[in-house]
């Protein structure tokens, strides 16, 4: 190690420009993000030189409806967890714009690799929301067919799915298809090696993949300053593809930026990183208590940026929706909540022998042997009415 490198650092301002941002802490950077915004928290449309969007009133109402219903579904799931019907729930409260905006940018033949919080993306892909609850109720580990809606299974291990997305995108490119792939992950996942490796592979193979990071500021109790020293979106540059930070609570900006990134990928111009700067209004999951690790003032300051409220303000300001519309949507929300509640309560426990289902596609003598032993053991309980069939 040289003497020079151990000496105290001097501010580097040789260029003459006072770039004070270089001296900011990540916390300060986080509070003053440079981001793409098309809709202010007050519901006013603003222009951005690189990203523009022109939506019909019907399309705007569609985005609003998606966000409202997703929030209602999420609230219902949280309640169901509190009532003991779900073992756990990962709420998306506050992240509706990031998910609905990016999700509505997708084409049908695009493919989504989510984490475990992309309930809004699942919604726009047409996955029945009750399908998302099986794993949280403990009846399966996913259960839906990813091929039906091009929406992969939820992935619990942080960041793993970004590599799957890149591999899938490499396959898309090999097939000569003009579709794209999107990988969702969070700010915490950006510290994982798999995410770094996925950036490397995507860049090297020019894979048609969009990395969509929802920076919701918290990885359970770890704030972003415990994860990074430079803004996340800037990381892309080091891998050789563009990164952009978008207002994650602005559904229009999320839609416009993601649409642009996906089109870029479809044109064969390779990957792009979109950092949606947003906030997780609730806990990481129903298991943690955010009052132990973050200040109420911070959460309150984000409440003023609510993604749903700001689109409602636009709809009202421009006369795109009247009271009857909002009342109708409220009724639709309640109906969705009721449907979800009833579906969860009616969700049967799996058959005992389901433990042995689908371990191997080609079967296994060992699994067959253990299944037979377990079935015989269950059948040995004479007082169990259904034990003879090996049922529950």
């Amino acid at each position, binding site marked *: 190690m040289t003497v020079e490198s151990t000496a105290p650092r001097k501010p580097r301002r040789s260029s003459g420009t006072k770039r004070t941002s270089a001296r900011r802490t990540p916390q300060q950077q986080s509070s003053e993000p440079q981001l793409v915004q098309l809709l202010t928290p007050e519901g006013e449309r603003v222009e951005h030189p690189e990203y523009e969007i022109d939506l019909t009133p019907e399309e705007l109402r569609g985005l609003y409806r998606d966000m409202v219903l997703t929030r209602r579904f999420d609230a219902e799931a949280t309640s169901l967890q509190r009532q003991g019907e779900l073992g756990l729930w990962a709420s998306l409260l506050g992240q509706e714009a990031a998910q609905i905006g990016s999700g509505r940018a997708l084409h049908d033949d695009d493919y989504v690799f989510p984490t475990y919080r992309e309930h809004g993306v699942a919604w726009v892909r047409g996955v029945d929301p009750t399908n998302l609850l099986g794993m949280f109720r403990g009846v*399966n580990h996913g259960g839906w067919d990813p091929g039906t809606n091009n929406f992969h299974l939820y992935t619990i291990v942080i960041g793993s799915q970004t*590599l799957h997305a890149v*591999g899938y995108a*490499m396959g898309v490119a*090999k097939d000569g298809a003009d579709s794209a792939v999107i990988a969702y992950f969070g700010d915490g996942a950006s510290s994982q090696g*798999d995410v770094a490796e996925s950036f490397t592979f995507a860049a090297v193979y020019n894979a048609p993949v969009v990395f969509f990071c929802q920076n919701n500021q918290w990885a359970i109790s770890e704030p972003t300053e415990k994860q990074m020293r430079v803004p996340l979106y800037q990381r892309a540059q080091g891998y050789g593809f563009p990164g952009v930070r978008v207002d994650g609570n602005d559904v229009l900006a999320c839609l416009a930026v993601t649409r642009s990134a996906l089109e870029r990928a479809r044109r064969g111009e390779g990957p792009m990183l979109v950092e949606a700067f947003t906030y997780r209004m609730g806990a990481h999951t129903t298991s943690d208590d955010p009052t132990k690790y973050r200040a109420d003032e911070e959460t309150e300051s984000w409440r003023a940026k609510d993604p749903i409220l700001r689109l409602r303000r636009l709809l009202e300001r421009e006369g795109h929706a009247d009271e009857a519309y909002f009342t109708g949507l409220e009724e639709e929300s309640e109906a969705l909540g009721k449907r979800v509640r009833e579906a969860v309560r009616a969700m049967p426990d799996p058959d005992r022998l389901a433990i042995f289902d689908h371990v191997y596609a080609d079967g296994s003598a*060992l699994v067959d042997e253990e299944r037979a032993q377990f079935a015989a053991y269950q059948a040995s309980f004479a007082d169990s009415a259904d034990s003879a069939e090996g049922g529950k």
Partner: protein
Amino acid sequence: MAVQKLPLAKAINESLRKALETDPKVLIMGEDVGKLGGVFRVTDGLQKDFGEGRVIDTPLAESGIVGTAIGLALRGYRPVVEIQFDGFVFPAYDQIVTQLAKMHARALGKIKMPVVIRIPYGGGIGAVEHHSESPEALFAHVAGLKIVSPSTSSDAYWMMQQAILSDDPVIFFEPKRRYWDKSEVDPEAIPGPLHKARVALSGSDLTLAAYGPMVKVCLEAAAAAAEEGKSLEVLDLRSISPIDFDTVQTSVEKTGRLVVVHEAPVFYGSGAEIAARITERCFYQLEAPVLRVGGFHAPYPPARLEDEYLPGLDRVLDAVDRSLAY
């Protein structure tokens, strides 16, 4: 390709070539597998003949190799990935264990994971640290994976074909110190099932069970024992998960004695599983406890000590004597 004697590495090469020719969805991926043909030249010439789109040199990132192979499999491809050496698989262990092994079950059978992971494994070549390990038990413990290891060129050729055809993830452990051993390959033969054990040598006094690099050691031990008038049966298990316990049971019912031999540490090794199962199945036929011969509960030693660590003829024969003395 006619019937011919091939080194084991070349047999795998021919097998991969055939798979690439047969199915356009088969891909080869790994570090240095292209122009170099792999550090053991197992993929020699394949990129030249099939192109960089089919035989893919990857960044030096094992989790990335397996993780992207999973994505390619989801897209309908059948990737065969190479991990350069046994000790380098651990950065990919998370992807293999938490993703590859479980995805079929997680999707309730709706998706399949036809990924083959080739790992040159085991010692005996005088290599440096992390180049001589036998981590098969760490994988065999995981449901959803299938683990195999050939000991002959013919098996290497056919088992690779079968592994690639399998819709399950297969970890293909290649006995690297046997890469240069030649034996006959008949490309017109009809191979047996992938997970069935083979009686490599018939005998009546005691059963030796082994796989991969240790099959040859056991056959040599049997030859030496034969000079002393002892008749040993040698089983080549071929598959480590699942294990063909039926064939082992049949043999032990005949001989009454079993010694399991592998390079990996004995403690929690595959020998423990075989000993326990066979004791359950053959309790009244066993004339002696099942004995195990293998590596020690110590890091794989430096090359100058590996001959002490690896089971050789004498340690196998010592176990045979102990078993026969009961």
